[in-house]
């Protein structure tokens, strides 16, 4: 194997080993395999957190893990790792982490081996619609209209979004579009909505059109609720999101289910918190109170 990959693997393994923390619950005797792709500060942070919780976990590049005897649990960090793990037909359950629901569905549909019975589960990366709608309702404290763009890849979320909006006392405007349609036209049709909620959708959002979206909505005094901290930093008003620790706390619970012989289901994050772009909020004349800043559910809370 090329020296670069060995060195990187050793470095990442070392990160796991030096991490100190309380070990999470795992099925007895199961080897926990962490598959990742690439190298970045974000990935290193995840691996450090994993290492604190699961000191026995081993990290692999997706195509280099040897076949083993005995139980194993495969954690795929990101859609590329998930794709590779499925292609490699790993034994043992696969849990996808830090992958959006849209990407997870697409990868599983395209790469899960036919006839495979190995369980594939996930904790989606983005907050579920009802958390985002709760956030919007708490920001505005009245009935407002929420515009959402959906493509064919995210159309499955329409009913969940409508239900979440209804429960939160909000109106929702769904705009169906496609990657081949003009993004600006779809965005224009949402100009009547007071808030625009972004759903992660790899077929719709590119850096260019996210930039156009943030600029256009800001011009119209429309707030944008994003799906990640990076969008909040870029100019979205707020996002409901889950930190790494939030996701791993829920992973503990899935591990527990596996240990009890249960097959964990696909989940949105249970634990979440909110982030705001205070400057944008102020500029849009949106008053945020302390209660909305503390919105969410923390592990153990």
């Amino acid at each position: 194997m090329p020296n670069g990959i060995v060195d990187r693997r050793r470095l990442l393994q070392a990160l796991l080993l030096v991490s100190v923390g309380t070990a999470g619950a795992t099925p007895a005797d199961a080897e926990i395999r962490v598959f990742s792709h690439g190298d970045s500060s974000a990935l290193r942070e995840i691996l450090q957190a994993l290492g604190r919780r699961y000191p026995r976990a081993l990290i692999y590049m997706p195509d280099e893990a040897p076949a083993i005897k005995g139980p194993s649990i495969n954690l795929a960090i990101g859609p590329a790792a998930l794709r590779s793990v499925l292609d490699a037909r790993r034994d043992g359950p696969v849990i996808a982490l830090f992958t959006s629901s849209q990407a997870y569905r697409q990868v599983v549909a395209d790469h899960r081996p036919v006839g495979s019975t190995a369980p594939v589960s996930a904790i989606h990366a983005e907050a579920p619609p009802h958390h985002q709608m709760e956030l919007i309702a708490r920001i505005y404290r009245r009935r407002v209209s929420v515009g959402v763009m959906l493509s064919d890849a995210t159309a499955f979320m329409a009913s969940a979004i409508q239900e979440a909006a209804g429960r939160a006392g909000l109106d929702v405007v769904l705009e169906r579009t496609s990657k081949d349609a003009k993004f600006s036209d779809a965005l224009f049709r949402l100009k009547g909505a007071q808030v625009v909620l972004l759903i992660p959708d790899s077929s719709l959002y590119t850096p260019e059109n996210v930039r156009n979206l943030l600029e256009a909505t800001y011009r119209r005094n429309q707030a944008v609720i994003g799906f990640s901290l990076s969008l909040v930093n870029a100019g979205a008003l707020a996002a409901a999101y889950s930190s790494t620790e939030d996701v791993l706390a829920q992973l503990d619970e899935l591990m527990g289910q596996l240990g009890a012989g249960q097959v964990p289901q696909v989940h949105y994050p249970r634990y979440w918190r909110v982030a705001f772009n205070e400057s944008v909020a102020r500029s849009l004349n949106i008053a945020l109170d302390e209660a909305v800043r503390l919105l969410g559910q923390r592990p153990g809370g």
Partner: protein
Amino acid sequence: MTEAFPRKPFTPLCALLATGALIANAAYAQSGSEDLLQEQGFPAVISPARLKQSLADVPASVTVITADTIQKLGITSIVAALQLVPGVQITQATGNDFRVNYHGTNIFNPRRLNVLIDGISVYQPAYARVMWRQLPVSVEDVDRIEVTRGPASAAYGPNSMMAVVNIITKHPNDVEPAMASGMAGSQGSVLATARFGTTWERSSLRLTVETEQDRGYDFQSIIGRDHDSTRSRRLNLRTLSELGDQSQLDLQAAYVEGTNQVPFVVAGQTSFPDQKVRDYYVQAAWTRHFSADHDLSTRVNYANTTFFQPWSSCAPTAALLPQMNALWRANPGYVNAILAGRIPSGGSATDNALAAAALQAIARLGARATQSACGLVNQNLRETRTDIEVQDTYVLSNQLRVVSGFGARTQRGRSDTFFAGTSSNRVYHVFGNVEYKPLKALTLNAGGYLERNSLSGSSFSPRVAANWHVSENQTMRLVVSQGTRTPDLFEETAKWSYAVAAVSPPIDGATSATFYQSAYSKGGLGAEKNLSKEVGYLVNLPAAGMIVDLKVFDDRLSSLISEKLQVSSFAPTNSSSVRLRGAEVQANFELSPAWSGHLTYAYLDNLDPSSLYERAQYSRNSGSLSVTHKLSDGWWYSLAYYGSSGDGLGQAAYGRTDATFGKSFTTAGSRWTASFMIRLLDYRTVSYFRDFGSTAESRYDSRIQMYAQLKASF
């Protein structure tokens, strides 16, 4: 100058938290990037340098009228939208003559309110007026109108003495590929607009063409009949191009032409002195984003406005004698005495010699002296303005933001009637504003605008303000500012006389003459001033979707040029003053997506005017109220009332109720909106002050008016 917001963004995006990176990076799966965790996420788009200042931090009271409000209330002109602004006084003297002031005062030539389109003034330099019916923008292209209620000379320079109206047009990216709109209604009103929008690579374009016309009123007392219709055509083009990732170029061009029927200019006219207007504007603005905290904008614009206003007129032949013209220039009292049949006296030897010559010339005419001679006169005028300005926006920290800049402007007026040729001036200016937040609960603004005018010298307009944020949603505001208005070219350099062509019958064989009256400005005028003190309170009530702004103010206007400038009496001085005190309240609410509305009320005291001309337009009480309800299936209705008590000299009260209902629907990929408005006027007649003992009236035949509009977007 744009208002801006000082805070820095979060930590730069090169260090994303895991969740954000992976979710964001998932978006790139289709783009082919497999190494998603290496992606850096989304770059900061709404950077500190580009943030708008919040209402809680703005050092003024501001009214914002959105395009949605304009459509839902059935508003079809920009001047009509201004009736939603507390404290704005509008008198529609004729169909195309609007006298618009903030807090009223002088009705003759309102010129203390600056009007900007995308930051560029359309306040005409030579004659200090705004042609409301020929603004180079269609109401369909208006994204919002921001009115800063109070002196804003510290930011926008002189002529923003009482308030500033900033009309912000739609970004070319924010319009449909195609739109067509038509309106027809009472008084022969017709308005047709077509707009095209497109994008290519990193550019976008918006092109709008429009025609409008209406008959105006049904009767003007000044002529005993009706003659005030308006026809206008306008073309507006705007393109925006991204020049790389750090620069942007905004180009705009507009052309307006039209005809304003004018009922009256002078006694003796034998045809109507209608105006033909032809204006064009070009502007280029280049913005460079050096960093998230630093923007530099350079803007160049050129405006050329032309009025053709010829008419035929008759006068006693004696009034066209050159000897009478010469005597008037020396001693108008002598001419008035001669015309009254008296022998003038009390003047100089030169006056006496000129009077003798005039009397001899009159004697030679014999009986013809009192008979009419007719000819062609005009008030043709071309005004040009070339302006360049550089503005730097720099966010030094979360607490400190500085906007500064400088510029130069050349203004020219060309008219044989008003300037005996050409008059021009050159203006240089520097400005700066600092927004400082020493505490989370306190925002301080301090700024000023220094202008050097080649005709009227230098003027400085400062402003200081403190906004104390009592809580997350309450702010108290204290503002002290000085607004100024520098005299226009006409006030400073007028050489006003009427040449008469095609005189019939000829006088001593001559078919050209000059009317005996003329006026020459002595110059030396200074800027009008408004020292304004304001205490404001802003509360944001999210549960009701309501923002309420209250203000009490005390404005002391001084060095006012109040005189009515006439060719028979032209003596502008800076000798007037008036004190304006009062209170305003403004509430906008959006209870839900279905219910919205607004309320405004203004109370005004016009105190101690040293010239009663400064009380010619004045309403002690004025306001407006509207409610809009959106129903299901695209239906909506709105109800609005506008009223003012009309307490100025010769001024009548005004009130009207507009009921609008409409429906929007989508079919075959296009979106249609149809609406119908019924208007009920409280009074059929508008009256306004012309001079002491003279009030003019314009009248509609009916108190009920109706308008229908259909719009299609593709």
